[in-house]
């Protein structure tokens, strides 16, 4: 049963610019942990940003839980976005705010302007933030400023912020690229556990092929805006990887 289906997605950043995605289609199931791999410039980040329309595609179709994503107006789009958690390569935390405020900001899609502006979050939101911070192992750092934390800890704050959104889908944009190999593995393992606990499907850009093979059950291979491979991880092999990266990978 697919929860997200993408059809013939095409993206250009300007009318005369190169086509970044050249008609990509795929389906994501309710319990998939989907990896998108491919060389730099293949369009991985663009593809993932199209799902919540941080990037506007030129044409194509995106259907998420039965909603036609590209047909939404800005109010409806905000409502859709609050149900899609996103985790970034550079964490994208607000460094001058506390860990708690960063995590609570994940809730902003659900509260009114004034509640957000004056930080009048409800008791439920606050207790939820504290338990989410427990879950990612940061209960000792609640009141620290985000820039006092290490890279791995910051990404955990990013994960906590995404979980505050009560996500129906997680988009990960190179979540481990700023981390060392050991921490990368820990973070990926945490995300995988959490995806299972919260029963959330995951769509993950990742250039580290080993991590993709280890944690993901399905893989899309992109090269130059074209889908070269789409299938379960077990079907992926060295020959196909070489083809995607146009070189010898493993």
């Amino acid at each position, binding site marked *: 049963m697919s929860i997200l289906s993408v059809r013939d997605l095409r993206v250009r950043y300007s009318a005369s610019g190169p086509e970044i995605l050249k008609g990509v289609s795929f389906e994501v199931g309710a319990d998939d942990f989907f990896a998108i791999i491919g060389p730099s410039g293949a369009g991985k980040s663009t593809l993932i940003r199209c799902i919540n329309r941080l990037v506007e595609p030129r044409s194509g179709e995106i259907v998420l839980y039965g909603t036609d994503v590209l047909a939404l107006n800005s109010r409806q789009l905000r409502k859709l976005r609050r149900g899609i958690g996103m985790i970034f390569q550079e964490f994208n935390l607000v460094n001058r705010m506390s860990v708690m405020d960063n995590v609570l900001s994940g809730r902003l899609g659900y509260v009114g302007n004034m509640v957000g502006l004056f930080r009048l979050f409800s008791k439920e939101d606050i207790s939820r933030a504290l338990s989410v911070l427990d879950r990612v192992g940061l209960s000792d750092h609640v009141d620290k400023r985000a820039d006092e934390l290490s890279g791995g800890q910051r990404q955990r704050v990013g994960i906590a*912020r995404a979980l505050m959104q009560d996500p129906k889908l997680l988009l990960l944009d190179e979540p481990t690229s700023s981390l060392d190999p050991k921490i990368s593995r820990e973070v990926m393992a945490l995300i995988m556990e959490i995806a299972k606990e919260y029963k959330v499907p995951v769509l993950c850009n990742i250039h580290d092929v080993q991590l993709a093979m280890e944690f993901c059950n399905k893989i899309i291979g992109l090269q130059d805006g074209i889908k070269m491979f789409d299938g379960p991880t077990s079907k992926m092999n060295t020959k196909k990887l070489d083809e995607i990266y146009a070189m010898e990978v493993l």
Partner: protein
Amino acid sequence: MAVSTATQASSDTKPAPPREWRRFKFPESLYRWGGVLLALVFVSYSIIYLNIPLDRFFNMFGRVGQLVADRYYPPEIDYVLEPDYLASVFDTIQMSYLGALFGMLMAVPLGWFGSYNMTPSRRFVYPVARLVTMSARAVHETIWAILFVTILGFGMMAGVLALTMFCIGFAGKLFAEEIEAIDMGPVEALRATGASELNVMAYAVFPQVRVAFTGIGIYTWDVAFRAATVVGFFGAGGMGWYLKRNILQIETYRVSAILVSIIVLVLIAEGISAWARARVAKAK
């Protein structure tokens, strides 16, 4: 091996000529020197055209000393200690404070709307906000003062409004530039959570510019205070009025006393502003 034999061979013969390199190749070098020459010609043309007698300019320094010694010394310090004048100093301080406050209240939204990266609409809101800020900036504060005195009559209100316009132009531009320099990562992250643009501003942008805004705010007050000493000249309230009256009455000892008081006050304001900005910068 091949390299060493090659150097061997060249050292046997005569040494290679030093290799040359010029920063500006032929056509650019011509343009550059041409540009410098043009600028010099233009400056000398302006001086000749405006008929500026440079010899008088160099004699000026001796005459300044004589004039000050003859007519402006000693300053009549008692005059600036009179209650009427001290009240006008107090008025000036309050005027600068109110003008800076109102100006900045307007400059914050104008800075938001007039920053290219965060403006709600690049096609409509951005140019309007830039136009408002630029117009406020293009007109000098003394001209704002004359304008508001004409509309509202003499008094503090005209002065406060003139300073408000001045601060809109001054702080609005600096605020917009500060917003344009932020890291857009958190902005993208908060948009992805479905937060409203107002909340994106409050959570992703404001924490990044808070320290800079406070510094700019203090600096704006400092500059507004200097401007406030002048707007009174045109009847917009404050100590400028006393300056004008005494100049017209040729009370030169009083004029020098007033000038001394302005310099002292500006120095104090600048000191407070520098101290406060240093504190804010350290506060993270």
